[in-house]
């Protein structure tokens, strides 16, 4: 069964925390990965790869550059799940 936006956000926040140490409650939908959370490209790719496994989705490399905010990523994952 597909996960809700809230469930994906919670799961993504755990992956961000695991990679960077950023508190899960700081991973909010409107936050920018680079500007607000200070996540570099290597950590971003690590999070993406871990998210693919966790949520059983594919996130093409070309798509990663469009994932500027946490909401972008959550929405993409929610959409990819239902396809």
């Amino acid at each position, binding site marked *: 069964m597909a996960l809700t936006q809230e469930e994906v956000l919670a799961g993504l926040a755990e992956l961000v925390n695991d990679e960077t140490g950023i508190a899960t409650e700081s991973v909010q939908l409107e936050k920018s990965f680079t500007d607000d959370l200070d996540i570099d490209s290597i950590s971003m790719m690590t999070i993406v*790869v871990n998210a693919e*496994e966790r949520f059983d989705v594919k996130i093409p490399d070309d798509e990663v550059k469009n994932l500027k905010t946490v909401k972008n990523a959550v929405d993409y994952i929610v959409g990819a799940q239902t396809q």
Partner: protein
Amino acid sequence: MAEKIVITGIGASSPLGGTAPESWEGLLRGDSGTHRLEHDWIDELDLTVKFAAEAKVRPSEVLERPKAKRLDIASQFAVVSAIEAWADAGSPDVAPERLGVDYATGIGGVWTLLDAWDTLREKGERRVMPMTVPMLMPNAAAAAISMHFEARAFAHTVASACASSTESLANGFEHLRAGLADVVIAGGAESAIHPITIASFNSMQALSRRNDSPETASRPYSVDRDGFVMGEGAASLVLETESHARARGAKIYAEVAGAGVTADSYHITANDPEGRGAIRAVELALAQAGASADDVTHINAHATSTPVGDIAEYTALHKVFGDRVHEIPVSATKSQTGHLLGGTGALEAMFTALAVMNRTAPPTINVVDQDPAIPLRISAQPIALDNGPQVAISNSFGFGGHNAVVALRNMN
């Protein structure tokens, strides 16, 4: 006269303890860091050698997780020991452009590389993490230390197998003498107790197979020694020009008085039977220290506990010191720590600095029946050094024919 180079900070994570003082105390107690390995892969792979000297404290227990996640375990050990050494040195106030790093590893991020290979084969390309290469590269530890301490003078890496971190100390000494920095963090790290390295060293019959008594397996100079014991960990030393250290009122452990680095050009793994490269390395270190062979009061030998290596080193030492070598207190500290490969030289130089400072040569354990062909002066108990000036050498020799020796002098 060239400026003196001194040691003002020490740090270690070793099979004897998670810090430099704990390692030193364990050494003086005569602890053995060697144990049977409890990993599933020991029995799954039915490895011939089932023991090693793992570090007593996992660095992931000390480092913050985000920092640890970006470092191979060898680099984690490096950073842990460097943080300790830096704090011990009193966190010197030095411009980033005057702080350098000379670090070493023998093998690099072998766990990262082989874990990634497993991941690639089991889960496919997509699951190979982007940090794989930056973690496995041999300069990762030097880079991590440089970033952690804002060291911008330089960040060099030496890889000369088991001579690596004595050579990195030699480089730090030379770089400071050349005026390239005021302070250098030098040392070496290794975490290569992996089934591949165990299998390979075992295949070349270099490892002890004493599975029935791991704690006593590393027994340099014993007549029944049967190979070395793999160790793990790191040691870091803060090296500094004496003027810089004095100006800030730093405590000084010892002077790095000289260093000798040579190459055998003989065989990829075997010792030159005449020990020519080793002899020259000792002589170069002493000449640079302005010391003669007669001045030497203590030797921390390479002494890995292999049948041929121990005798080869003794032969070289005898040629340098003559029969007086039988009177000099010698410590074969690998009897307790195992062999940290690229980390071993820095750890042993640290022990040597503490030995001359405290006038105490550490024990050599597990020698029940000393090889009559190697009549060096060793003891299962610490040996008191005399009240006079102390000049000690710490030797390291590595596959590839690398020889590195540092000469240390007490400051009293």
